[in-house]
């Protein structure tokens, strides 16, 4: 490969670290690398939040047969900047009865897990900020912190809508964490590692995306993660038509802006997890040798992020009890069956040392199983809806009762 193509691998940076390490203490290099990496992630996340505002509004605008923001800057690209400036300028209001300390904490608190998620992603080979060997566990653990921050926000606002939203978040977080964790267990069992870089390497070496191998995991994870993200069809925590804005009803100005930004960043994070765990992360069947891998990864992230925007633009919202029932009655049994199947397959493949071609058989079996399961549960859910016809009955001639003659006593 041409050495010129390697600039994007940040190899010069690596050489720089080595040079600094040779001349100064190793600890200094460690801190320096941490700062540089954190800056990189923060810039991606910060820029991502701005870009996502524009993307989201613009794409949903197109889906809604309107134009979307197109006044500020070319194609309305500067709209998020204008929005942010507006939000910063706004007066920060705080309800009198709100708990002061707790009210101000959550907008900052929700930011932390959103940022931390990006630290374990493998952006390119050997380009991981923190290649934790418990990466998946770390992701699951910090994603729970978000719900806690949201609950604090709802509780401290001292507003009934906010409290309702907060309670919904907690109820939903508890229900959807279980299928979410169970769904991610299958890839971990299959790859034998919890490190995100390790999982990506597994997919790279075997040239197989886990999405084909474990389609049910992907489905369950995608559904649960959408629920955790508070996006339609599970945006019950901030259900606009029901409880105004849910947990952030009382937040104004930049505090609201932070919640809004976190929502978008979390969507990116979930897209990133889906891309790393199920769609090969930065790898694209050899294409990563010619295109910067982190561009492939970001491209994948935005591909799945588009899916999330699509969902938001098209789907109505479920009721909270329907969402709960969906998690407990459909997703958890599905996830359990999925794990059992995955374990059996891993046993056959790893312990009995079957050939790698058996993975293709597994993929076919798993996809078939998913189709059957989804069909079964779908029929189970929708049975009661289709009891009555979904089109009206047309009546041409109607019977009109004759009125009693004027003067005669009508009725008794």
């Amino acid at each position, binding site marked *: 490969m041409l050495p010129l193509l390697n600039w994007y691998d940040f190899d010069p940076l690596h050489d720089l670290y080595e040079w600094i390490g040779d001349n100064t203490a190793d600890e200094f290099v460690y801190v320096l690398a941490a700062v540089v990496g954190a800056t990189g992630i923060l810039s991606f996340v910060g820029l991502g939040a701005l870009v996502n505002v524009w993307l989201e509004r613009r794409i949903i605008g197109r889906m809604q047969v309107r134009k979307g923001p197109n006044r500020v800057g070319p194609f309305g690209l500067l709209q998020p900047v204008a929005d942010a400036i507006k939000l910063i300028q706004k007066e920060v209001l705080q309800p009198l009865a709100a708990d002061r300390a707790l009210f101000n904490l959550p907008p900052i608190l929700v930011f932390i897990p959103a940022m931390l998620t990006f630290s374990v992603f493998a952006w390119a080979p050997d380009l991981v900020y923190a290649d934790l060997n418990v990466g998946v566990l770390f992701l699951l653990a910090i994603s729970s912190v978000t719900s806690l921050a949201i609950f604090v926000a709802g509780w401290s606002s001292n507003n009934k809508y906010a409290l309702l939203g907060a309670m919904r978040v907690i109820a939903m977080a508890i229900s959807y964490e279980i299928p979410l964790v169970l769904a991610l267990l299958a890839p971990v069992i299959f790859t034998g590692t919890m490190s995100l870089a390790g999982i990506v390497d597994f997919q790279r070496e075997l040239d197989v995306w886990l999405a084909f191998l474990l389609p049910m995991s992907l489905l369950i994870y995608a559904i649960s993660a959408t629920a955790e993200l508070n996006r339609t069809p599970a945006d019950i925590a901030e259900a606009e038509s029901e409880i105004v804005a849910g947990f952030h009803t009382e937040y104004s100005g930049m505090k609201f802006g932070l919640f809004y930004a976190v929502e978008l960043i979390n969507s990116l994070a979930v897209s990133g997890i889906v891309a790393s765990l199920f769609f090969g992360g930065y790898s694209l069947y050899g294409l990563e040798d010619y295109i910067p891998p982190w561009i492939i990864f970001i491209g994948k992230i935005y591909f799945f992020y588009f899916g999330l925007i699509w969902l938001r633009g098209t789907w*109505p919202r479920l*009721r909270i009890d329907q969402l709960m029932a969906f998690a407990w009655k459909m997703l958890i049994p599905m996830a359990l069956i999925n794990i059992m199947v995955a374990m059996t397959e891993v046993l056959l493949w790893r312990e009995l040392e079957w050939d790698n071609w058996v993975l293709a058989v597994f993929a076919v079996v798993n996809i078939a199983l998913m189709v059957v399961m989804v069909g079964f549960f779908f029929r189970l859910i929708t049975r009661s*809806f289709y009891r009555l016809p979904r089109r009206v009955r047309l009546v041409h001639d109607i019977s009109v009762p004759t009125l009693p003659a004027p003067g005669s006593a009508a009725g008794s």
Partner: protein
Amino acid sequence: MTELHTPPYVVNIGPQHPSTHGVFRLKVTLDGERIVDAEMVLGYLHRSMEKLAEERTYTQNIPFTDRMDYLAAMTGNLGYCLAAEKLAGVDVPERASYLRVIFAELQRIASHCMANGTFVNDCGAWQTPLMYMFREREKILDLFEMTCGARLTTNYMRIGGVAFDVPDEWYPAINDLMAEMPDRISEYEEMLLDNEIILARSRDIGVLTPERAINASASGPLLRGTGIAWDLRKADPYCVYDRFDFDIPVGHNGDCFDRFIVRLEEMRQSVSIIRQALQQLPGGPVSTPVPLALRPDPGEAYACIESPKGELGFYLVSDGGSAPYRWHARSPSYINLTVLKDLSVGLSLADAIVILGSLDINVGEIDR
């Protein structure tokens, strides 16, 4: 073990709330998310129209009817003008009657676009169906603008006819719209009727029994959703409705979904009526000259029409003066709203919003 004490609490939905469709306040008592009691608080949009009308001439009162149901100004105009004509014994030229039917049906389509769009919005769809339906509503409002210069508060009908004849450019515009409208309605049906989430949110939610509907004096899509075929356009034809061939859509179950599909099909029937009316549209004058200060003989009159929301009736009493002695409107939104408590108690807060959306109320008409 002591039982956890969870007292019910009161939540005010409105007067400022994204889905109360105006300044309407619903005071709900909740047990968790389940509604144990609901109380409607009305009057935030009261403008004292009925009293003001007693100080104005019959013609001056027409703009009030625009501002009652501001999403269906044409039908408001029509109902009042019919009552005033009945009171004063004014004849309407045939062309005017046809134009009234056409504009009333256009208004019905526009109003149902709004009702169905906001209903799906209340189900949680992030405005997309609403925007699709607004696309067609815009074109209808353009037709209004061409004819009378106003889009929302049209003030188009007059006692004895209509204010203006339609301009020449109106004919191709309405023909185009009527040609594409059936496809658009099919598009909505494809998008919305097979959507499991909409079914989950509205099927078997807020079931209104036919008996309860009749007892509550419900009318319009709310009544037809329960399976009762009743439409004043067929039961007591006014204008020239007896000359058109159309069907009355009725629901199966009386739930929110039935009201929704009844409205969708009514749009299609309205298109059929407009097409027939355009074919039959005669020439001639569009209004009978009526004295500006109309002084009907002492007496009373009640005329009712099938407005998009139900039976819209106007009751007028004349004492021989130039202003009505009494001016009363039977507004369908107000009467239909009375079933809200019955439908929503026992269900969750989210369901109450969907039910409220399916009733298709307009607060301007409730408070008057």
